[in-house]
């Protein structure tokens, strides 16, 4: 029988052997890695249209196999994209390529400048769409901190039968239409819980919905020079409007919604209007839900002064971390991904729209015609949905979404301050408090404006955001 001492001595030898192996580990790993060529680790979200992931993962692997690079793709839920980036920056290790679905600007300091990648792409395909440029480039530091391969339009989704029954078969076209329609919908369809389903909660969709409302009433968080101008008569008008809409057409349910709630409410025919991309519609199609025949879309609604704007629903922003040891492979992959924009759009069932329209142009198109050719190809898909819409041109309005779509940070560029305001729900809370009467609209605006200025000033001190001289 072994004594305790003998046991420990043996154990000690094993530990020593383990330590030696660990010390030799990096050498062994390097040799192994060299034998298997280079590696590229990509962090992606789990796409709202799952079919896209089934295309992306093999696409990335195949690209890697062709170039002697071992590609790994990891997916996280959309809510974990930012926390994961925070953790990887803190650890200074992780993935090489990190995809953001909103603003990556807060991480600018830790990513490499991708000007050369955008330069290459612009030489091949012409300019990218303006909202992608404004979401991935910081004019203050002159850094291209991310590259966008796609963006997603955010139309209104309306229930055709309900709106037809109240005399508006083509759905709403202005914000005022929602206020007028809500009491009529309540009267005709008392069983519907939420006549108008515009989210006012702490979630991503509500964050966009309230910005749309703000912009269409002429307000915004910042101006073009990044001065905070939230404290304005226009913002107050938007809040007064939200209060009216809430009182006639919404319930407390919209204060608790998560990203899936508006889809679920619309698909269950518990609301007649929501703001969403086509992912909810694709879910209804996949499950052949009763709502399908009445599932229709309208463009962004017009505000009182005729402004018609909607935030992009998703804006991809791929960054390459400074700590990455595969920066060149990451850049090459980004170019390859944008080369495959047609496949990407089709794999996502027309959810993804290319950030470089020229990348979906017909082959051999001359540079000066690439944008138009790309736009024509997009229109062809939307006018005759290859994924079974009835009627086939149900998604036609998406092809014309670019003029009424804009970036977070409108009318300026996206920046870390706008990102922090987005992620901490300053604007949704301002609208929710005003709409429910938790605070008077003016007080709610003052509270949010003070917080916005605090956040902007913090980022200005860090040298990441300009402006400040004309803050209100």
């Amino acid at each position, binding site marked *: 029988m072994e004594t305790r001492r003998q046991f420990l001595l043996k154990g000690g030898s094993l530990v020593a052997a383990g330590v030696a192996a660990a010390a030799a580990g990096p050498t062994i790993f390097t040799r192994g890695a060299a034998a298997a060529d280079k590696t590229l680790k990509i962090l992606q979200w789990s796409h709202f249209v799952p079919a896209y992931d089934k295309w992306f993962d093999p696409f990335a692997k195949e690209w890697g196999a062709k170039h002697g690079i071992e590609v790994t793709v990891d997916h996280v839920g959309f809510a974990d994209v930012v*926390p994961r980036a925070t953790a990887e920056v803190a650890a*200074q290790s992780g993935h090489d390529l990190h995809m953001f679905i909103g603003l990556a600007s807060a991480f600018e300091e830790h990513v490499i400048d991708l000007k050369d990648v955008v330069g290459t792409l612009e030489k091949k395909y012409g300019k990218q769409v303006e909202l992608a440029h404004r979401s991935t480039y910081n004019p203050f530091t002159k850094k291209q901190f991310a590259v966008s391969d796609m963006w997603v339009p955010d139309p209104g989704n309306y229930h055709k039968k309900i709106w037809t029954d109240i005399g508006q078969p083509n759905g709403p076209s202005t914000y005022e239409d929602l206020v007028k329609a809500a009491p009529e919908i309540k009267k005709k369809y008392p069983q519907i*819980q939420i006549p108008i389903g515009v989210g006012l909660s*702490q979630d991503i969709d509500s964050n966009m919905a309230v910005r749309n409302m703000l912009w269409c009433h002429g307000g915004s968080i910042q101006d073009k020079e990044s001065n905070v101008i939230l404290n304005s008569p226009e913002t107050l008008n938007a809040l007064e409007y939200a209060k009216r809409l809430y009182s006639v057409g919404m*319930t407390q349910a919209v204060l608790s919604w998560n990203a899936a709630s508006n889809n679920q409410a619309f698909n269950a025919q518990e609301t007649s209007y929501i703001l969403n991309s086509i992912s909810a519609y694709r879910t209804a199609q996949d499950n052949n839900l009763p709502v399908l025949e009445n599932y229709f879309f309208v463009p962004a609604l017009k505000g009182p002064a005729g402004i018609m704007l909607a935030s992009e629903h998703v804006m991809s922003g791929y960054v390459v971390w400074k700590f990455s040891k595969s920066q060149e492979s990451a850049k090459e992959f980004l170019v390859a991904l944008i080369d495959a924009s047609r496949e990407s759009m089709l794999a996502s069932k027309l959810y993804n729209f290319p950030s470089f329209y020229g990348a979906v142009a017909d082959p051999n198109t001359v540079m000066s015609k690439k944008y138009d050719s790309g736009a024509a190809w997009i229109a062809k898909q939307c006018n005759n949905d290859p994924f079974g819409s009835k009627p086939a041109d149900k998604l036609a309005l998406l092809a014309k979404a670019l003029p009424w779509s804009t970036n977070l940070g409108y009318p300026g560029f996206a920046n870390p301050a706008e990102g922090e305001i987005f992620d901490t729900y300053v604007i949704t809370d301002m609208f*929710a408090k005003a709409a429910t009467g938790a605070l008077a609209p003016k007080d709610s605006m003052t509270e949010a404006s003070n*917080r916005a200025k605090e956040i902007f000033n913090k980022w200005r001190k860090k040298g990441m955001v300009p402006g400040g001289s004309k803050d209100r």
Partner: protein
Amino acid sequence: METAETTGTATFLTATDALSPRDRRLGKLLLAPALAYIFLLVALPFVLALFLSLTNSSAGSLDFSFVGLQNFANVVRNPVFRRALWNTFVFTFVSQVLVMVLGNILARALLKKFRGKLLVRFLILMPWAAPISLATLGWLWIFDSTFSVINWVLKVVGWLGPGQWYYWLGDPTLGMVAIITVHVWRLLPFSTVILLAGLTSIPSEVHEAADIDGAGPLAKAFQITIPMMLPILTVAILFGTVFTFTDMNVVYLLTRGGPYNSTHVLASLAYQEGVLGGDVGRGASIAIFLLPLLVVMAVLMLRISRRAEVV
């Protein structure tokens, strides 16, 4: 031979003195993993949090400057923080009272003999064993503002009339009710097991003697059961309190602090500001705001657990 007794001086040998140097080295070796664990995963992050709360550190940067108590001054001015602070106390106090009362009832029920007792014990322990994220998803549907099963049942039985509806997660008060309900559901098994252990540790002879002396149920509860269970009861309360004070899971998974940041507790607000919002310094200052209170509680806990050892 001279001994301690012969010299007349009192000599006390501790357990360590009795060990040979070889065994002492072994003791240190065996203790090292636990100490390393505490140092690396508890002490170091804690000191780091303290340090970060005094800086303007942000998530996307490794550079920061020392800002003193500025973060604390900023958060105290913020109405969302003040609400979260209030919620933290309400959340902790109400859930602890409920956990103790319900745990006591369950523990006493489980002391009795009945058929299927094993199954009941298993079912009671289930919430403790279930991953909180999975369990909360279930609760999320139960409390869903549009599809709440509670509301549908209340509607069917006639409690809710036409147009009446409870927006569990869309109303600040009902939101807190939902959060506390899930937290109580989650902590109840642990407190039941602790209280059950305390009850079974009281010798039956004591109760029998009290019966012979003619003591009633109230006298037995206040003069025998509660005094004899006091150390273990206090440990359970303090553990539950500290656990609840620092927990953010239920809040974050159920309401994400909404509506309009009205159901945040300090831990969930710290996550929102520090991790999601990227203001690490501000997040750290929110997270450690209650540190002085928690330190007092920890000291109390240690003292009482030492007393429990003696008992």
